[in-house]
């Protein structure tokens, strides 16, 4: 509340018509009530003055401009949110006969994958937004890009995971292909978000989307790593 008195001032306190003057001005009162209020206005200068002011408010409102063009282009921030939800193809386990042949190589690399996945988890955690501060970009106007230490860690971890997973998936080109398609879709999405963020660095929604896409990429790689680890067990 703003503490302002919204009732009729300067006369007619307690007037039963005082709260209905807007309806009267708008022509929304039934005929009987309208006639009664007109009789009142004829003898009450205070209410008549208020009614006239209300008409002026209505007229003033009618002159208010309706359009307000944005001072910056809002379209990039809209466009990046129009993409259909990313539907990544499921990564399925290789058929039983396949993984048995690949098992020895997979076992050998299992420890390294687990290690990379752990690092990835830590990096992903670091990228999450802090409660009160922008999560990635530190300088004002700077979009999240592979610039900071966390970004470098992230890219390094992703590259390591990819190498490991790719090496193991040589025995299953189908899974490898699905993985690559999913990763490519995520990369396109992240590029879009970065591009939009470079134009609107303060857009929290875009920032969340970018972080989400990064997380999904790591999760995807971890999932692939888990698959290959499972096949090696």
């Amino acid at each position, binding site marked *: *509340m*703003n*503490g*302002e008195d*919204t*009732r*009729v001032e300067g006369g007619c306190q307690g007037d039963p018509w005082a*709260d*209905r*003057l*807007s*309806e009267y001005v*708008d022509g*929304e009162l039934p005929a009987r009530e309208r006639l009664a209020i007109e009789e009142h206005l004829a003898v009450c200068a205070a209410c008549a003055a*208020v009614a006239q*002011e*209300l008409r*002026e*408010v*209505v*007229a*003033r*409102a*009618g*002159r*208010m*401009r*309706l*359009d*307000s*063009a*944005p*001072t*910056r282009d*809002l*379209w990039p*921030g*809209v*466009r990046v*949110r*129009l993409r259909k939800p990313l539907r990544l193809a499921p990564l399925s386990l290789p058929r039983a006969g396949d993984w048995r042949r690949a098992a020895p190589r997979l076992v050998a690399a299992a420890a390294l994958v687990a290690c990379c996945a752990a690092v990835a988890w830590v990096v992903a955690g670091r990228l999450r937004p802090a409660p009160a501060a922008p999560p990635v970009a530190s300088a004002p106007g700077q979009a999240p890009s592979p610039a900071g230490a966390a970004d470098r860690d992230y890219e390094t971890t992703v590259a390591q995971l990819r190498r490991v997973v790719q090496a193991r998936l040589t025995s299953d080109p189908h899974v490898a292909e699905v993985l690559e398609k999913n990763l490519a879709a995520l990369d396109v999405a992240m590029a879009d978000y970065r591009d939009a963020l470079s134009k609107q660095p303060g*857009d929290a*929604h875009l920032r969340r989307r970018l972080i989400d896409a990064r997380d999904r990429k790591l999760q995807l790689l971890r999932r692939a790593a888990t698959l290959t680890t499972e096949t090696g067990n």
Partner: protein
Amino acid sequence: MLLSRSAQREGDPTHQRTAGPATEDLGDVALASKGDGQAFERLYRRHVARIRGLACRMAGVAAADELTQDAFVRAWEKIRTFRGESQFGTWLHRLAVNVILEDRRGVARRRVVQDGVSAGVENASVQPVDAAFSIDFEAAVDRLPDGARHVFVLHDVEGYKHHEIAALAGITVGTSKGQLHRARMILRKHLTAGAAGRAAGGCLP
């Protein structure tokens, strides 16, 4: 003036004052419904100023850009439900009102939780309006308590009817009328100040 705006709204609440877009919209709506982003961008370009103007008046300039984007994203998601019974601009305007009011309700709820007082439901950020300082009429609109502001903007600025506002805002017709009267009673004190121009706090350039 109000009558003329209301009359405009009977055919098209929001866009008859802008020449031409209705016909152009039809083709682009059809394309956008099939996923054509470029057609949707054209729709966006034609209507963005109108929707941002609404967001500005309803929610304030600070929230206007994000709400404008939210409204267009929602429009993209819902465009297949547009049946052509009204003009696209009318449909979009109503959808934007919904998006804005939903957001404002969320803001009000968060404010109550943060403040821990139910009295904070109304516009807690609003500053007391003192007619003695003669603030601009439009700045006074921006400073109205939320409920009164929403109804005033929708009714007196945008030309909606009380029953429409009641449906959109989830309130009764009586509440809508009461809030409108409340808003006007505040604003009548600011009629003389800045009537020719707009000073501090305005949404519009």
